[in-house]
């Protein structure tokens, strides 16, 4: 089974790191994984999208997916082109601190999480994406929260390790703020969990 996740935000919001962390977490959970990040130019306020595919067998799909099982929306600016790619009933986590615009709450299972505010409250204003990925793990079970924490630590370059503790708090806060779906991503928590 292949589970897709699309992430969108603006440069600087941490979308690429979040995608990486989920990918590493899935690998830690023993699954096949493919992560593809697409961002314009450098770390400036342009678009920042990413795709994650996690599977319990080898992945057949090419790294750009046409249909997705879920989405994380850190900002609405580059969200529109993503909408048609979501399968009916797809799980969407919205950054409700910033999100503006319409979303079809009938067709999609939408979860509003005010991650920018939560991150600010945690004293880690740049940690919104970490809160979000904690929430995503909590809602979908696509990766285990513990795997996400470990994946985050492995994803930080040496010169950013000082942020690890704050990020861990952010991930756990996100996970605690939500409830798991009735039908999560997998039957079991993790292939080797």
């Amino acid at each position: 089974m292949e589970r897709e996740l699309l992430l969108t935000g603006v440069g600087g919001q941490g979308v690429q790191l979040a995608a990486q962390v989920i990918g590493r977490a899935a690998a830690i959970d023993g699954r096949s994984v493919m992560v593809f990040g697409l961002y314009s130019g450098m770390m400036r306020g342009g678009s920042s999208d990413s795709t994650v595919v996690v599977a319990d067998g080898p992945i057949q799909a090419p790294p750009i997916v046409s249909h997705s099982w879920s989405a994380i929306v850190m900002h609405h600016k580059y969200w529109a082109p993503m909408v048609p790619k979501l399968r009916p009933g797809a799980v969407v986590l919205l950054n409700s601190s910033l999100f503006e615009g319409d979303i079809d709450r009938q067709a999609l299972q939408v979860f509003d999480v005010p991650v920018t505010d939560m991150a600010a409250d945690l004293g880690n204003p740049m940690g919104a994406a970490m809160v979000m990925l904690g929430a995503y793990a909590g809602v979908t079970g696509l990766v285990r929260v513990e795997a996400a924490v470990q994946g985050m630590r492995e994803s930080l370059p040496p010169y950013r390790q000082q942020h690890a503790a704050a990020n861990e708090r952010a991930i756990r806060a996100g996970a605690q703020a939500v409830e798991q779906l009735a039908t999560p991503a997998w039957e079991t928590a993790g292939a080797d969990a």
Partner: protein
Amino acid sequence: MTRRLMEGSEAMAEAAVASGCRFFAGYPMTPFTELLEHLARRLPEVGGVCINAESELEAVGMAWGALATGARAATGSTGQGLSLMQESFSEITLAELPLVVFNMARGQSDYFQATRGGGHGDYRHIVLAPMDIAEAVELTQLAFHLADRWRNPVLVYGDYLLAHTAEAVDVSPMTFAPLPPKDWAVDGSLGGTSRSRTVSSLGVGKVNRPGGGIPAHFEAVVPKQAAITAEEVRVETGFLDDAQHVVVAFGTPAKFVRYVVGQLRAEGVHVGFVRPISLWPFPYEAVAAAAEGVRSVMVFEINGGQMVDDVRIGVQGKAPVVSIGGISTDGSGFGVGPLLDVEVIRGRVEAVVSGQEVPA
């Protein structure tokens, strides 16, 4: 080495290290940058050298020097940076140095540059185009082997998607047939012995052992290219047996095409594919065989129409050749544009199969 989530750039860097590459020089440029970053970190760990060259011109020159000593050495960039290296590329080929070049292309519009030689002269690089990370790990190692085997540069043709996609991969060293010793390399030890060596693109030796001279040196190109053409064609084909239509594609877009062809076959559409893995030498024979008796040969490439020339040469008029690709880029000019989408490709293939116009 155990499986680890690595982006394509990192996996290729690891494959280079596993191949014994001990010198790299490069200059950052999207989407090549990460390959350089990984090698800058990894090579010193294994006793190698990675220089953050001050420009692409310097990078290729440094690699030239390292190669002349017999080391396995590489450089790389993306389209523009490789354009700057063209003079060196053709002359390194004439000097018969086993350079490996990583072209992390911004799309596929450097096909001509890669296969026809953007530089002057009759040189050709062997060009290997992986479709995904696992294959990139193999072809990178093959590249170092072939470069040494033929004393000819080999270009690995990756792209943005390959560089920036991460998968859990395992890079283990491959084994190849043994190679002759590099007795042509200079190590400085033969000065004053009347047997000193010259590494040169000019075909000149020392006065006491002048070699064949420039004309002979240049003419030696032809049989060498013929030998490579005879031995190094690599291609994957699928579903050709009773195909009425064939799609030709290379590199990461070929992975999309293969997926689409698989879907269509599952639905009973008689379509097959040819995926050139070596772009030079090009699998003309495989294309010719595939073209026999089909109703169309489609070419899906992300550019204005380049590989289509080689497909036409292969098809030799046996079937109509139809371009179903095109220039496709994101707003930044180096990312991935709208054509790289399973649905879009499927739509184009279906249009040709059903005799309609290809949607723009």
